């Protein structure tokens, strides 16, 4: 038995190594023809792109939009607290809603990948969420520190 055989547990686990379980289908699925698999692969790529866009929106457009709405609430109610509360609640609400949509898209992506002939066990949502957070955080830090932060005060124009 090769050392990398997933069924060789080395006596550490009762069953197989964690994360090596095969997919359990209710019945053996019947995959479509070559053309359909190619179409499914394309659809899967589109769904993944939509997922990425949704996740990216969590770190820019959505907070910005809710900050604008919060400012409007502040203006009309003359209450900073109300503005902050509405912006915060709105951000949390749309975050949850977006993740719910993204999670459904992720499931759809898994099904499309499997239909395209891949042994797709896990979704990509967690990874996309983490990567977009890092990317958006980096962009924000660059904007905050370099563009809008102390950077301009060090420049020779001031």
């Amino acid at each position: 038995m090769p050392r990398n055989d997933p069924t060789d547990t080395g006596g550490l686990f009762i069953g197989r190594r964690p994360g090596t379980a095969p997919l359990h289908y209710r019945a053996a699925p019947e995959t479509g023809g070559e053309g359909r698999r190619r179409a499914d692969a394309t659809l899967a790529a589109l769904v993944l792109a939509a997922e990425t866009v949704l996740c990216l929106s969590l770190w820019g457009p959505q907070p910005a939009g809710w900050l604008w709405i919060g400012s409007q609430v502040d203006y009309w109610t003359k209450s900073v607290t109300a503005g902050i509360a509405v912006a915060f609640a709105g951000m949390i609400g749309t975050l949850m809603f977006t993740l719910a949509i993204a999670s459904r898209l992720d499931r759809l992506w898994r099904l499309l990948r499997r239909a395209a002939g891949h042994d797709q066990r896990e979704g990509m949502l967690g990874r996309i969420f983490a990567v977009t957070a890092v990317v958006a955080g980096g962009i924000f830090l660059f904007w905050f520190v370099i563009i809008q932060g102390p950077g301009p005060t060090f420049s020779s124009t001031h």
Partner: protein
Amino acid sequence: MRRFIDYYRQFDEMTPEEISADLRARRDEERARQLEEVPSLDLASGAWPGPPHAEAVNAATFALRRALNAYPDPSRAVAAIAQRHGVDADRVATGHGAGDLLRAALAAVAPGGEVAVAWPAWGPIPRLVHEAGGTPVPVPLGADGAPDAAALLAAATPVTRAVVLCTPNDPTGAATDPTALARLAAELPEPVWLIVDAALAPFAPDDPSTLVEARQRVLVVHSASKAHALAGLRAGYALGPAGSLIERIAPVEGLASPALAALAWAASAGDAAVERRRAHANAERERLARELEDTPLSFPAGHGHLVWLGSERHDGRTLAGHLAARRIAVMPGAAWGDDARIRIALRDAAATERLAAALRELD
């Protein structure tokens, strides 16, 4: 549209809860099936049903890993066997089991003559005599199921080359009285070889190996398959007069080194294990005898795990068929030309009780 959605739904995996429920259902189904199934019980093979002593396996394994590139050295095993039986080392030949030693011995002594065989005996003996160019002459067993020494002596004619007997006898388990055996060895005409298959001898209190001191033309063949539970190693040895026969029956390059190592361990340190197996076999014989009291079934008193069972009401074919229908395999006596009996190789208490229960259903 529904077909379109269903196409993609078939790729949806089961949830962990669904998987667990499915596994539970499969387990329950398997358990239910196990309760319905009756496992088969093999009581036909004459090999010892349990594993060998761990030290015998260790000895063989050590030899296997030590120097498999070298030719085997039989001197240690031969010395241990010689010491065990109190004979000189040049009176010992090791071989690939008792069967091969018997074949070689018969090939050397039987050509052109008759060989008196106490029958029924170990099944292949008549074939080995034929192969050697001799004519097997069956000599009926005594009333006790053991080879009849007097009848064998009477069967010896001027054309008899050898007399062959098994003690304790396979398939009956009955042993020839040592005094009668000694008389046979003493009174058998000198040109005739006395060949004793002692494969089951460790199960009996008397060792026929002492005959090698009582007569020049005598060969006592031992096996490691039964009492030492080493049938898979194909190891045995023979004791006889120093000289050509002992040299001729040994394999050309001897036994493999694992077999020699296990034989050496068995001869020098295997007594305790043999004693346990002897007690186990005798306990099972007694258990079966108790279980079959007040039934028309009976078997000769004897030693070892082989039982030669007969019935006053049914023939061997009926007995074997009845047991086979209950998934218990035994050897029909027809294999020895005796349609009245069956040979049973006892295993353990559970097997004996299941056998006895099945047999009691018959009568």
